[in-house]
């Protein structure tokens, strides 16, 4: 298994996967850096504003980003017509485990970079309301879980159809639907997995006055039922991806 993982890491190095992983949090932070309150604005609840906006950005970027990561992991085999070779030279379990571990590692890395970047950005601007540790952990857990669920769903598509195009199309369409679900009644968000970043978010817009343009943010309790449901979906896609690899004809 370790040899398989090492092989995957070598492939990732040649594919410049680290750069691809850096691209996603960079995109989020460029956007967040522009949208985040700066030193000329009220900084008392600026972290609230930032963490309220980040899930919306993730909804646009992550479905496509996860499709990118998932398709790169498998596309390298399709291009070289390698699945036949790999299926006969190594156990399918070790092949899948190595790819899954690499994918999980990439998702965790992206989430850590994004979170660290957001906290760094706020500290740089001098935001006053540094989030409590439990909020940071909850945000990390939610972002990781939703991203992994998307990652394995896209990987399943790439493996089943032996083509990265459907996964990317689903990613873009999902990002669009997810973004729209954020502007619809809250119940809609529960039916759109690509946009789960938004209903899972604990930072909310408590009130907004269109005349004075004063925004008040708040914090709601953690949405554990949805988080558990999301984790169950991630496990479901993980199992089906493993099944797809196991049952693939050579």
């Amino acid at each position: 298994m370790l040899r398989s993982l090492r092989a995957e890491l070598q492939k990732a190095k040649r594919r410049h996967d680290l750069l691809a992983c850096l691209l996603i949090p960079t995109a989020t932070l460029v956007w967040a850096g522009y949208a985040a309150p700066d030193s000329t604005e009220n900084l008392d609840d600026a972290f609230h504003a930032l963490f309220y906006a980040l899930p919306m950005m993730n909804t646009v970027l992550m479905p496509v980003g996860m499709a990118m990561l998932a398709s790169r992991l498998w596309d390298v085999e399709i291009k070289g017509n390698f699945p036949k070779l790999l299926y006969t030279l190594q156990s399918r379990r070790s092949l899948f485990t190595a790819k899954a571990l690499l994918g999980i590692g990439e998702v965790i890395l992206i989430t850590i970079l994004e979170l660290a970047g957001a906290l760094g950005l706020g500290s740089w601007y001098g935001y006053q309301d540094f989030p409590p540790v439990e909020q940071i952990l909850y945000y990390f857990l939610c972002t990781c879980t939703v991203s992994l669920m998307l990652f394995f769903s896209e990987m399943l598509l790439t493996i089943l159809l032996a083509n990265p195009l459907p996964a990317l199309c689903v990613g873009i369409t999902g990002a669009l639907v997810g973004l729209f679900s954020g502007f619809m009644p809250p119940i809609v968000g529960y039916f759109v997995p690509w946009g789960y970043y938004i209903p899972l978010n604990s930072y909310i817009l408590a009130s907004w006055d269109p005349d004075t343009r004063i925004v008040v943010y708040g914090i709601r309790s953690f949405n554990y039922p949805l988080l558990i449901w999301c984790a169950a979906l991630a496990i479901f896609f993980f199992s089906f991806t493993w099944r797809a690899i196991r049952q693939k004809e050579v």
Partner: protein
Amino acid sequence: MLYRCIQAENRKLHASPIWIMFFLLPVISAGYGTFNYLQNLELLTKSWYSLWTQHTLFYSLFFFPAMVAIYAAYLWRLEHLGHNWNLIMASPVRPLALFFAKFVVVIKLVLLTQLFIFFLYFLCGKVFASLPGWPPPETFFYLLRGMLGGLSVVALQLILSMIIRSFAVPIFIGLFGGIVGMLAASRSRGLYWPYALMQYGMNSNKSEDLLAGSYLPFVVSCFLWLVAFFLLAQLLLTHRDVKS
């Protein structure tokens, strides 16, 4: 020879899954746009113009570059498989003709997408929003302007998909480019960033014309970016060795 290249590129689109996205994205965008318009009638008071902004806002900000990126990456994908790069570079065709053929085919797809979006806009305006009369001619003009602004995005995405062998990475770069375009446009720096030109052209986020009185800089910017990308493509195709 160019015509034969265009025919070859067109064949790649036969029975392609790209058509699913071609239909799906505009329909979703139109569905949400109409829903949002009907929910906010007290704020969105400029009838056809307001419906236009709702229909095209997210499409032109985020999803047009990503869609163009998919079209471009799909057309280059075959070249990146096996030893096809060697094959096409050894064929008796000027390298830029290959690039131009792909450009023409993506433009065709973009034009069809734009027309489909206008058709959905008209249909939703009449059937669901019950708007009076016909859509203002300006909105059709915005569509053509968006097309003009989109030319440089098409050329740039074709270059990215040509030099990056991965199918997916140029698509994410396209999405990222659209976001930077949105930020550039909001600071009135859109003419310096190709991805913002389409957003300017479509006039998606304001009822007033964003380009009123500044058509010349817009057209010059579109032209300059396009020429720059074609020169870059020519340079890359003639001076850079293929990696197959």
